[in-house]
């Protein structure tokens, strides 16, 4: 239901306005004899009643705060920014009307009141407001949909970078990340290290215990390896199969060796047993360098892979630094 607030100090004129508006079909007419009373009704003063209003008909020549001042005050409140104010005035001088429009009034009705004018102006202002309300509601809907779309895109992006089985990053994300960190290290002449990890006897584990056991083992090992990384820039990804790779920016070979050893012992502490006598362990190869024009990121990966191969050949469950 449309609520119309009539602010008019003359009881006779406010009664007349109320009667005409009711005849026009508006049932919720609220009367205020002063700007102060109107502001109280609208909740603009402490202890007000906070009534929702769709249209205000405001006399200019009010006692106390006049209609222009009241219009300014109401319009300065964001809550009533969209509420149209029609000034009701016998003073149609240019100065007076300019002040009313500058204060935020949308239209004016002259006194003495004419039913035809009142009907036309109130009708057109309310139609305009309803159209604006519809547009704003549509804008809000579109904004909400855009937010939802952004969130969905973010989730999809994250999903495309995460290894579904283990929950750590996948190889695609590793390649992007490694490339960025390599360039940063190159520009900053900083050391960058890499750790390659391979689960020992994983094929045998899968063959004897089944793939479900193998998958659970991969999840637990991924968690143990992640636990060894403490700094925000350190990063681990599933490289493929039972292989993991970690990039350690601004980390020397000695530092990387300490982290590698922590990874190895973390996995041993999992105490995953299989084939009666074996416990799941990992072999680890480490490489590191300060990037320059003679080296590539593929070179660093290949060096870590060589170190890993050496660890495997030397009896597994150990860390080797290239």
């Amino acid at each position, binding site marked *: 239901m449309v609520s119309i607030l009539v602010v008019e100090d*003359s009881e*006779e004129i406010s009664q*007349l306005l109320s009667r005409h508006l009711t005849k026009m079909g508006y049932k919720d007419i609220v009367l205020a004899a002063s700007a102060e009373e109107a502001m109280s009704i609208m909740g603009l003063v402490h202890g007000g009643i906070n009534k929702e209003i769709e249209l205000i008909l405001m006399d200019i020549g009010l006692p106390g705060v006049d209609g222009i001042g009241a219009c300014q005050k109401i319009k300065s409140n964001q809550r009533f920014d969209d509420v149209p104010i029609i000034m009701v005035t016998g003073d149609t001088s240019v100065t007076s009307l300019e002040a009313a429009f500058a204060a935020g009034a949308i239209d004016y009705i002259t*006194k*003495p009141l*004419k039913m035809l004018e009142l009907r036309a102006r109130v009708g057109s202002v309310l139609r305009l407001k309803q159209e604006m309300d519809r547009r704003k509601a549509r804008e809000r809907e579109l904004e909400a949909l855009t937010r939802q779309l952004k969130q969905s895109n973010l989730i999809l992006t994250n999903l495309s970078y995460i290894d579904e089985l283990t929950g750590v990053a996948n190889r695609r994300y590793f390649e992007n990340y490694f490339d960025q960190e390599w360039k940063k290290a190159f520009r900053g002449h900083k050391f960058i290290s890499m750790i390659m990890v391979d689960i020992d006897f994983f094929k045998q584990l899968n063959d004897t215990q089944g793939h479900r056991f193998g998958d659970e083992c991969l999840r637990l090992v991924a968690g143990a390896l992640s636990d060894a990384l403490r700094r925000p820039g350190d990063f681990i990804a599933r490289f493929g199969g039972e292989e993991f790779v970690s990039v350690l920016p601004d980390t020397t070979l000695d530092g990387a060796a300490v982290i590698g050893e922590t990874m190895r012992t973390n996995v041993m502490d999992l105490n995953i047993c299989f084939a009666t006598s074996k416990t799941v362990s990992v072999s680890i190869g480490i490489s590191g360098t300060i990037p320059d024009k003679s080296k590539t990121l593929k070179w660093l990966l290949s060096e870590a892979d060589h170190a890993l191969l050496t660890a495997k050949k030397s009896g597994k469950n150990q860390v080797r630094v290239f």
Partner: protein
Amino acid sequence: MIVAINIAYSSRGVMTEDSGKIIVTIDNDLADLIPGYLVNRGDDIKKMNTAIESGEFEIIRTTGHQLKGSGGGYGFDFITATGMSIEQGAKDKDIVEIKRHIAALGDYLDRLTILYE
């Protein structure tokens, strides 16, 4: 007797010669408001006459302004026109003119007959 001034200002009211009565036609929807409105105009006349004696032109101006703003809305265009003249008279401090229009208003109220339709 036909009162010429009322013919000039009346847009909705119909005035006829009928033993000096001024007949004004008013919308039936306002019927319950009219008696009170007219009683208040009688009070306005008393208030303005008192103000003339004490030289309080601001009271006369405000009352004239209110008559101007309300009369036509109820269907009494003569009251609006008279209110305008009284307001101007108060601004000019022209007691003769003010008295003349107050008297015209009194006469109008005395002879007024309302027809509702």
